[in-house]
């Protein structure tokens, strides 16, 4: 029998039973005792600086610190930070967070702690944060579960629901659109023809009573090529055009299709492209778009 031991492995734990003790000394001990009470203190150096967390000596000079403890914070400012995308078991939070250098108000040095910011985009130098305390405190730095950003904005949902009726004029126009025709109105005073149909003349102020059925052909007076995408708009680039229907005096705004955006011209002759009859409703979506007729351009 041959023994193959080269790939042997075994789990080995080196842990002092119960854990080591750490005698805190008077300075760290005071800091942790205050933490247990929900307060954060620093210690004053001989030069008058406030060290947080406190030390028994001034790291800059080596001199002993004074016996003066000062309450700082609890709020502070993030000086620098590093984002932890995938927290590990020993980390204080089970979700992505930042390790940050936080200078508490009244302190001259920064404290390292976790910031529960939710999103890396929320982190920036200068961010104001406050401690989130554990309910059960023992006198340990983890008595502060983490720091959290100040409240700087709230979300206010505004939502109104309406029942919208088209009104007489638009209803009449939509009846026409459902049948595949454009209904306009001619003013009895200035004789201008308005489409969509309306019941008053915006120029004369008089009631419009005469209906006119207009052809679905017209001329593009001017247009925009839209390159800015919006989930509610057609796919970009799309052309929104002012189209003067033949026999009308006011252009309508509509989509232009079946032609590359950059080939659309002012003066171009177009015709409405209707959705198939079985798909029509009393809505402007009956008109897919306007497409070029191929006729020569109109004079503008």
């Amino acid at each position: 029998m041959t023994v193959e031991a080269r790939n042997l492995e075994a789990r080995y734990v080196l842990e002092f039973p119960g854990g080591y003790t750490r005698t805190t000394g008077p300075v760290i001990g005071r800091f942790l005792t205050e933490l247990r009470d929900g307060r954060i203190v620093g210690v004053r150096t001989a030069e008058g600086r406030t060290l947080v967390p406190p030390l028994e000596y001034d790291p800059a000079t080596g001199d002993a610190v004074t016996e003066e403890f000062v309450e700082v914070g609890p709020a502070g400012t993030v000086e620098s930070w590093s984002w932890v995308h995938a927290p590990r078991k020993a980390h204080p939070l089970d979700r992505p967070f930042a390790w940050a250098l936080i200078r508490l108000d009244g302190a001259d040095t920064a404290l390292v702690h976790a910031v529960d910011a939710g999103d890396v985009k929320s982190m920036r130098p200068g961010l104001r944060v406050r401690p989130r305390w554990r309910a059960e405190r023992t006198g340990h730095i983890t008595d502060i579960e983490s720091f959290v950003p100040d409240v700087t904005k709230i979300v206010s949902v505004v939502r109104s629901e309406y029942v919208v009726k088209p009104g007489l004029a638009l209803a009449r126009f939509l009846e026409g659109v459902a049948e595949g025709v454009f209904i306009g109105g001619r003013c009895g005073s200035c004789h201008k023809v308005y489409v969509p149909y309306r019941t008053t003349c915006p120029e004369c102020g008089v009631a419009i009573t005469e209906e006119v059925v207009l052809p679905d052909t017209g001329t593009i007076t001017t247009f925009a090529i839209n390159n800015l995408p919006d989930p509610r708009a057609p796919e970009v680039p799309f052309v929104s055009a002012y189209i003067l229907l033949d026999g009308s005096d006011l252009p309508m705004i509509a989509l232009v299709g079946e032609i590359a955006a950059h080939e659309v011209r002012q003066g171009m002759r177009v015709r409405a492209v209707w959705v198939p009859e079985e798909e029509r409703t009393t809505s402007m979506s009956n008109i897919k778009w306007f497409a070029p007729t191929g006729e020569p351009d109109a004079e503008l």
Partner: protein
Amino acid sequence: MGNRCAIIGVGQTHYTTKRRDVSMAGLVREAALRALEDAGLTWKDIDAVVIGKAPDLFEGVMMPESYLADALGASGKPMMRVHTAGSVGGSTALVGASLIQGGVHDRVLVVAFEKQSESNATWALSTHLPFSASLVVGAGGYFAPHIREYIRRSGAPEHIGHLVAVKDRQNALKNPYAHLKIQGINQKMVESTPMLWEPIRYLDTCPSSDGACAMVLSAEDKITDSTPAWVLGTAMRSEPISRADRDTVSPQAGKDCAADVYRQAGITDPRREIDVAEVYVPFSWYEPMWLENLGFAAEGEGWKLTESGATALDGDIPWNASGGVLSSNPIGASGLIRFAEAALQVRGMAGEHQVDGARRALGHAYGGGAQFFAMWMVGSDKP
């Protein structure tokens, strides 16, 4: 025109994309307190407050005038809100001025603001109703066809818009309150930005800003030690947005409004008699368009004035020395900023973008689908 009206205090916030550090109340107070300080007054010296802002959907705050009354020291005083879309800032100043000119009040605080970062203006302007087709195009998509028509009619070369885009941003570098500060801005930079709504490129458009502007208006016998600007003329006009034969390139309401304000101020040749103009130009091409609409150039000739450099800070008729709407656009306040900058110029208090010896200035605002117009002429000399 009624009693004389003076502008004795102007206050502005720094314009920026997001003022995360202040509430709406804090924002308007910042501008108002600076205006009061400029006037050497306190809240108690004010008789009435007039506030303006763009449509409520911009921030989703309904009736901001009631929410902001106490923030603006209006407890126990008249407070009202003005609402004429993008021209609202101008209209707000004019309503305030009319309260002085009509002898109703001695000192009126006018304030306008927008906190665009709380929402999205394109969304707020494109809440299409049922039954209509969804053509979400925003303000740029709305104005682009009218610019295209201007270019067709006037035969203006393509680069004219870019010249304005550069010129106004260069001016903004001299204005401590301006939002966009583009060091080294040049035509090539504008041309290299994306085409949003042809023919409008990204840098041909205004930014989205948070900000507020305020002015203290005073009756003649209540002016303080601060340098006054005097109101020489005020006018507002509107027209139906859908009207046969409406000229969307050069709206009649704009021409009528200009004619009215010039008549009051005794101006017959605006190009020669006005020293500096602050005109609402949210898309660069609107400078040549408004040069014609406001009578600074003949029809079809506005672009030549722009091209010649006449409207630059060192030209003979500087337009938008402050950087204009193209550099700072808290929408509801943008009109009031034009009016306030006109006042600063004739008070000689415009700092680095001061036009030397400016004695008569035009403030202009337009709104909606270019159907609302508000203008004032202000001067250094008492009328």
